[in-house]
């Protein structure tokens, strides 16, 4: 999980001063929010399904050890391998080792947040493996040596002109970048060539099904299917919390995932993988067909072998800090199904975009998950990047109480003395005033007068002195001329 070299407020400043980013964020988040709304409105049982899904997640996380063991046994029974990584370092070492065992030179990769979290591509490059990102957005991120800024729509922060420029660097002609369909076709040709020669496919996993040892990968583009079908070796990276007990439970989750993410009833390809290709062992398939004529021979020789699919399946279960959250205040964040809805709904995310958070998991979920996995030190500003409006809790398909955890993290940073001294002092002062009614009323009158002097049209653009830190990123409202208490008394209670 890469930390940006700039501090949080510098990144926020930079984001807020970038008009192109502002326009891109507004367009994208509006579209995603309205898509989700339409999808949910056309789903009469949405609320009941969300309640049910939440209970499935709570149950699974509460019995995670049991379900992980069951999942492992089921994957083994189908001929797949399960690897356990306690840390990011172990996870990348495991993948590098698998690549080396199978003599892998090139790998194609479909979208995986865990792989970003553990910085897999850099580690594989060091091990001599070329990794090609195949999700269109992630491919552009890779070409630009950038970072994704949304967990579902990685290049939400870029416009077509940025992308056209990058594609020209890859040899695209004027015609190739004339419009979005042409650009997409250009990327398809380039990536298809990569797919046809890759030795290994690397994917994430949206869900693991404990009962059947199945892996569920949802994509719209189809790169998730190509990645898990064409190469001889398939490696899937999955956080340890991604399990559901049964296929019926998976059905419940799938009813919510697509609708919450983009408003789709299902993603285009809901790919459920139960073990590697069946019946074709190792190199026996080398005698396989090259044409219609050979097909008969292949069928005769292969008997009941499946026609295609990977010969080897490796599933890497990544902990990297997750197990430490169990049984604690932040355990609920492990219910998350990574739909991205809370990002789109968050007024802070809408303004600053994903990069400002400095973590691969931005937005409200990231503001809890990142300090949860990495510790608060260095990430203590993230839980402050929220107005606690509750939009994230409202929109979450499994009703995760993100504001509760943001408050808990804020309290923890004060305990750890990570909160800036001026903020601690301000809160101390407020606490003293709040229990002294006369002093409180006096302070209110003073503040009302002072803020009205500074305000224009009811808003203060810049507060004086130390207080200016507040107005660097946002305006401050002037106090009302009448206090709440005065108004209460005037209205005769």
């Amino acid at each position: 999980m890469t930390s940006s070299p700039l501090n949080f407020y510098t990144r926020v400043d930079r984001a807020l001063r970038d008009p192109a980013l502002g326009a891109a964020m507004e367009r994208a988040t509006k579209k995603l929010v309205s898509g989700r709304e339409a999808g949910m409105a056309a789903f009469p049982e949405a609320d009941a399904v969300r309640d049910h899904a939440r209970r499935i997640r709570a149950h699974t996380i509460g019995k995670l050890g049991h379900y992980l063991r069951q999942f492992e046994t089921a994957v083994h029974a189908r001929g797949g391998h399960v690897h356990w990584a306690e840390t990011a370092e172990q996870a990348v070492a495991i993948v590098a080792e698998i690549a080396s065992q199978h003599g892998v030179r090139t790998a194609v990769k479909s979208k995986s947040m865990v792989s970003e979290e553990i910085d897999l591509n850099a580690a594989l490059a060091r091990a001599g493996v070329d990794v090609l990102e195949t999700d269109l957005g992630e491919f552009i991120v890779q070409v630009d040596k950038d970072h994704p800024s949304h967990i579902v729509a990685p290049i939400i922060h870029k416009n077509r002109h940025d992308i056209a420029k990058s594609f020209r660097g890859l040899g695209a002609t004027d015609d190739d970048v004339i419009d979005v369909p042409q650009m997409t076709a250009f990327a398809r040709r380039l990536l298809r060539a990569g797919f046809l020669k890759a030795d290994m496919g690397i994917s994430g996993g949206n869900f693991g099904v404990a009962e059947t040892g199945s892996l569920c990968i949802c994509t719209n583009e189809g790169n998730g299917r190509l990645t898990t079908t064409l190469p001889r070796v398939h490696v899937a990276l999955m956080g340890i919390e991604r399990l559901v007990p049964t296929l019926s439970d998976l059905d419940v989750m799938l009813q919510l995932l697509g609708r919450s993410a983009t408003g789709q009833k299902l993603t285009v390809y809901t790919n459920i993988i139960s073990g590697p290709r069946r019946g074709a062992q190792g190199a026996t398939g080398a005698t396989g067909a090259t044409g219609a004529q050979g097909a008969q021979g292949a069928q005769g020789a292969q008997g009941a072998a499946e026609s295609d699919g990977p010969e080897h399946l490796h599933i890497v279960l990544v902990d990297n800090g997750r197990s430490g959250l169990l049984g604690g205040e932040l355990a609920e964040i492990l219910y998350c199904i990574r739909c991205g809805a809370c990002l789109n709904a968050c007024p802070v995310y809408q303004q600053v975009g994903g990069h400002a958070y400095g973590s691969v998991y931005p937005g409200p979920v990231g503001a809890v998950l990142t300090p949860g996995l990495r510790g608060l030190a260095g990430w203590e500003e993230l839980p402050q990047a929220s107005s606690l409006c509750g939009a994230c809790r409202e929109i979450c398909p499994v009703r995760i109480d993100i504001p509760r955890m943001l408050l808990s993290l804020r309290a923890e940073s004060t305990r750890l003395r990570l909160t800036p001294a001026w903020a601690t002092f301000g809160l101390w002062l407020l606490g003293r005033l709040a229990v002294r009614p006369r002093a409180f009323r006096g302070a209110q009158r003073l503040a009302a007068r002072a803020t009205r002097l500074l305000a224009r049209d009811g808003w203060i653009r810049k507060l004086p002195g130390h207080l200016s830190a507040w107005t660097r990123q946002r305006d401050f409202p002037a106090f009302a001329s009448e206090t709440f208490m005065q108004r209460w008394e005037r209205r005769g209670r």
Partner: protein
Amino acid sequence: MTDGRFNVLSTIDRQLRRGTLPPSGSLQHPGGFASRQAAPVDLVAQITRELEALAVTVHHEADDRAATARVLALFDERGASRVLAWDPEWLNCPGLSNAIDAHGIGREPCWLPAGASERRARLAAIDDVRVGLTGALAGLADTGSLALVSGPGRGRIASLLPPVHVAVLRADQIVPSFGAFLAAHPHVADEGSNLVLITGPSRTADIEMTLTRGVHGPGHVHVVIIG
């Protein structure tokens, strides 16, 4: 690797003993979701509506003969000289494979060899096939999805590599939902290593949220419903 397993599982077990989860009601498994929605009577009409909303072209054919003619016409429209096809017994339409052969169109099997160089050669040889032809195990009416299970003679690549996918489905294979499909096929994970629910043509909206079809998978999907 063994250490990783031991350490992860012991941390999980220790942490779970340490405390309770945040208030979320019961930790009991909630059982299956009992939908109160009445299943629509006309599943063919519903799946047609959903498929068309996804920009899938739906063809209703009365019998195998009409379906065969339709499929051949679709191939001719695309100028297909070869198709990447499932084996005859899985196409949901007896006689279709023979008719394709008689029409002079080559049927490429979905076979991929296991060896690295043979596999690459095979993939290079079939990458320019314009049309893929499959049957399906079921159609899901509420989402407009096709459920395909991999197996001998039923490769994944037929619905994946070519830019056009033609699927043949019998009307009695249409079920109300994925939940109903799982109830009818409780051991579907044993039937093949890959179950895919295909819901429309391949799409992306990564660039400026502009919907574009056919980025990696087929950009055009035709569903021929028999009966």
